[in-house]
């Protein structure tokens, strides 16, 4: 039983990896960026749990800047994905411009809330 499960899991991972290799490089870069942002957010939450929530506004802005970045990056990924038929009329240049604008607004708010 256990052997079957681990073999199934292995098969699953292998199929996932082979499917993922077919993903275009631009999407892989976005994925890496999202993982980096989420990882930074997790580090901060752990730090807050240890040190305490004293400068709570700083904590919120630190975590929200990571979460916001991740969300915006995912939005960009949805819009530039060729297989996604919903946004096939939207040029990737337009999607990237939206992404930059939203990031500027996000970081402006974060800077105000940080200190």
């Amino acid at each position, binding site marked *: 039983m256990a052997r079957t499960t681990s073999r199934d899991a292995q098969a699953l991972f292998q199929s996932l990896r082979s499917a993922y290799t077919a993903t275009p490089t631009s999407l892989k870069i976005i994925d890496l960026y999202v993982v980096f942002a989420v990882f*930074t957010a997790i580090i*901060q939450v752990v730090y807050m749990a240890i*040190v*305490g929530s004293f400068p709570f506004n700083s904590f919120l802005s*630190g975590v929200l*800047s990571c979460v916001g970045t991740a969300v915006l990056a995912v939005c960009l990924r949805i819009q530039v994905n060729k297989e996604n038929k919903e946004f096939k009329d939207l040029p990737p240049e337009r999607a990237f411009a939206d992404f930059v604008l939203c990031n500027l607004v996000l*970081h402006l708010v974060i*800077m105000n809330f*940080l*200190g």
Partner: protein
Amino acid sequence: MARSNFSVLTILSVTLLLPVLSLSFSPDSPSDRRLLVLLDDLSLKSSLSIFFNSLKSRGFDLDFKLADDPKLALQRYGQYLYDGLILFSPSIERFGGTLDLAAVLDFVDSGHDLLIAADSSASDLIKSVATECGVDFDEDPSALVIDHKSYAVAGTEGDHTLIAADDFIESDVLLGKNKIEAPVLFKGIAHSLNAANTLVLKVLSASPSAYSANPSSKLSSPPSLTGSSISLVSVIQARNNARIMITGSLDMFSNRFFRSSVQKAGSPKKYDKSGNEQFVTELSKWVFHERGHLKAVNLRHNKAGETDEPAMYRIKDDLDFSVEIYEWSGKSWEPYVADDVQVQFYMMSPYVLKTLSNDKKGLYHTSFKVPDVYGVFQFKVEYNRLGYTSLLLSKQIPVRPFRHNEYERFITAAFPYYGASFTMMAGFFIFSFVYLYHK
């Protein structure tokens, strides 16, 4: 020339007026100075001479008048002529002149003092004055206070209406520091306190075995007033600090009672002198504001370490608060020493309540931290103690939050969060660069 004449006139009139002005009741010297004494007949002047002489020797200016004198007036041109009124005219049905019940009550309402003594001949007028002050005399006109257990042995034989009372209120400010050893002789009518009046106090209470009835007739129904609910002497301090003393016995003030020896029934001890003189003298000192009159001055507050009084405090400021409290001793203001004066830092409810410490010289002081709440606060001292005039002080002071630049900046504990935020910005820049040029 005309001008110098005018100034000479002004100076002259001021110098002439000054002694008159300084005699009147003022916060600087709260003792009464001019008393109007209303009598039923002028022979009382000699039979009560010890009491009157004691008042005179304490600096009072007594004006004796018959209660039906047609020229009686308490005020002239809107100014009160007297600071206190003594009603030793129990049988008067109508005052003479402009004086009536309303005038007496107005006199008290404007902060002046009143001493009423009734006896078995008490008229409806005197009883209604007492009723307005929160004291109800027995309605039966022939009733006297009778006590078959604590009557005075030396007194009359048989009817036990001469009472040796020693159930005093325990208050140094009302009755003086020296304990009254001998019982007080009382012969007169009973009164009870109006339960709805919270300001009236029983100073001398009848014993539990006393009752109010006609001594010469047989008791057919239970007496309406019995036991220690009968008050022999009561005082009231009104909210404007006017003081009133009411007693049902005019004889209490008489020379005969002052000098008489007293022995309480059932007690082997015989006193050569009754307690009347001490009791009446001490209580009259209280009534005419020679004792128990407080004033608070120099209410100060400042930030800890500074001396100037700020117009506003910030939340979490440390502050010092001080106030000086003095008691009038009859001649001068003496430091008031007590350990129960409190200050409130108040905004709809007290946020801080601190007991003030004093330096035995009248200066009360404390320090505390302004609470973490902003708004318009008040420093409040509300001091009400039995027998003392009430102190009600309040001073408004706003409290503001931190200014924008008063917050802590660059907190060490927050450095990881700063780092993360800037990392995200740098990450955004690098990502854009890599994403655009990765081919």
